[in-house]
């Protein structure tokens, strides 16, 4: 197929501004008379706040304001559910914001933040999702679910009994992946101010400006039309800027002080203030017949949602949908769970739940090939999706399934690799 677009060379117009260092990221914008905001974050994974004493902080010259949960008009935000506090009075993870300081300089704000005394009632915390999902464990979000299981997606195809009966070889393994931080190179930064109309303007780097706008409006009690989010250059995101980080807090400071507010995370603060990739525990049992054809697969996938739901439902849905990999299996039983714990909250990150399961289903393929005495390439060629294949969710693939062509292309290189000792 010939088009004017595919295969043509195009220069990225934005590259020029970037190679000259002219492009404005949120840390690069400032306003006269701005104050600087710094967040005090919880060192405890699960705690109730008993008291916050900001007297010593307020004594410091140049401290404009200290805000706590009581200062937030509507203290919740979140992409799927508003289950995350803007400023917490009940802490569900290390890094939850518990107070915010506004100061005349960044140094004053940081010094003041250190002087704030927070009394916590430390509560028992739970870090293992398999433990957390037990019905007798108290839920972290009783308003959402009566247990810590935020989400369960079962997928069924065919008959497991028939599938296992046909299996000549079976591989059963457990796979685990870990938290991963996006570590985008530009730490979160925000400039928030009230404009001449009294509207809240928030300049930041975000993947989701219209959602940020809604959450800022909701938390502050503004109308949507009174909030403007301007996306500046985004210094990497990879999913990590799909949730709110400092946006509402900066806007709240601007509202309370009636002054422009600048906030800039250090790298350490950045790690605390955005989501992580879901760690997953994946129980896999896969069976194949002597001819190398897959006949049955059973998978239980448990994703650690951490303290807040963020995108967990969508992520674990995607894990489930991709659990067989690009292979046709007639008999399938998949159960995917997203479970609340007191770990850092997890959300969107490159692959969005599809990346973790690769480890499991591809390892299963290699192990099955070994048991069957065929090559890892051969087992994939015999099972990969083609036009007409039906996926575990019952979708018939009608076009654009070139996996066999792709494998055929790499086969010569792959064989050479295998043959070379």
């Amino acid at each position, binding site marked *: 197929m010939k088009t004017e677009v595919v295969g043509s060379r195009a*220069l*990225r117009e*934005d*590259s*020029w*501004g*970037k*190679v*000259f*260092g*002219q*492009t*404005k*990221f949120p*840390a*690069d914008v400032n306003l006269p008379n701005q104050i600087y905001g710094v967040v005090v974050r919880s060192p405890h994974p699960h705690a109730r706040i008993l008291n916050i004493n900001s007297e010593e902080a307020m004594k410091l010259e140049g401290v404009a304001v200290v805000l706590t949960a009581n200062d937030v008009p509507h203290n919740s935000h979140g992409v799927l559910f508003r289950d995350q506090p803007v400023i917490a009075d009940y802490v569900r993870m290390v890094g939850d914001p518990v107070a915010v300081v506004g100061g005349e300089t960044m140094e004053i704000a940081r010094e003041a933040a250190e002087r704030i005394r927070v009394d916590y009632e430390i509560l028992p915390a739970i870090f293992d999702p398999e433990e957390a999902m037990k019905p007798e464990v108290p839920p972290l979000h009783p308003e959402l679910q009566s247990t810590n299981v935020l989400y369960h997606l079962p997928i069924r195809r065919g008959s497991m009994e028939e599938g296992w009966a046909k299996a000549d070889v079976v591989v059963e393994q457990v796979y685990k992946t870990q938290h991963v931080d*996006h*570590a*985008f*190179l*530009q*730490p979160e930064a925000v400039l928030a101010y009230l404009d001449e109309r009294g509207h809240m303007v928030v300049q930041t780097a975000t993947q989701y400006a219209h959602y940020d706008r809604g959450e800022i409006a909701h938390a502050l009690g503004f109308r949507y039309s009174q909030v403007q989010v301007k996306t500046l*250059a*985004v*210094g*990497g*995101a*990879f999913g990590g800027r799909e949730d709110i980080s400092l946006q509402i807090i900066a806007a709240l400071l601007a509202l309370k002080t009636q002054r422009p507010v600048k906030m800039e995370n*250090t*790298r350490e603060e950045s790690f605390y203030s955005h989501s992580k990739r879901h760690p997953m525990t994946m129980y896999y049992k896969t069976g194949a017949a002597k001819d190398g054809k897959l006949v049955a697969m059973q998978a239980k996938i448990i994703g650690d949602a951490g303290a807040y739901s963020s995108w967990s439902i969508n992520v674990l849905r995607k894990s489930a949908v991709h659990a067989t990999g690009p292979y046709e299996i007639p008999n399938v039983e998949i159960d995917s769970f997203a479970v609340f714990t007191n770990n850092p909250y997890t959300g969107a990150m490159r692959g969005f739940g599809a990346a973790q399961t690769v480890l499991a289903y591809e390892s299963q393929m290699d192990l099955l090939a070994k048991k069957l005495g065929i090559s890892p390439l051969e087992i994939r060629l015999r099972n990969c999706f083609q036009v007409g294949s039906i996926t575990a969710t019952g979708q018939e693939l009608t076009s654009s399934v070139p996996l066999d062509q792709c494998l055929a292309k790499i086969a010569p290189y792959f064989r050479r690799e295998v043959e070379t000792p």
Partner: protein
Amino acid sequence: MMVIECIVNDKKYVLEVDPQERLLDVLRNHLGLLGTKEGCGEGECGACTVILDGKTVNSCLVLAGQAHNSVITTIEGVGNRQSPHPVQKAFVEVGAVQCGFCTPGMVLSAKNLLDKNPHPSDEEIGVALSGNLCRCTGYDKILRAVKLAAEEGK
């Protein structure tokens, strides 16, 4: 407060600075040279790279006082739209720029390499950029851009 003198992008400055300030703060806050970026503040990422007396440094690890009597080049002192530096041209040409946050530091590391060693080997290019992290591109195009800039300079 203390007074330092330095030459930044061919211009001489006498600046009153707080001894606690870093060269990065001096460049960004005193001189408004915002092309120098802060990514980690601890010398890991290289986004704040500048050339100081002919050497690339992480300006977040240089105290203002250490920059006294030095000659500094920041990204603002390298090329412009009318006459881009060969490294800048090559970065655009090859598509070595994605989010752009690491780009100023990358360009300065590459420029300083080519100033000293106009025909570097692949390994020398790799070593010269080893202090600059990129989270978007995977480095391949960046290395290719530096190679292209070196070839164009021949």
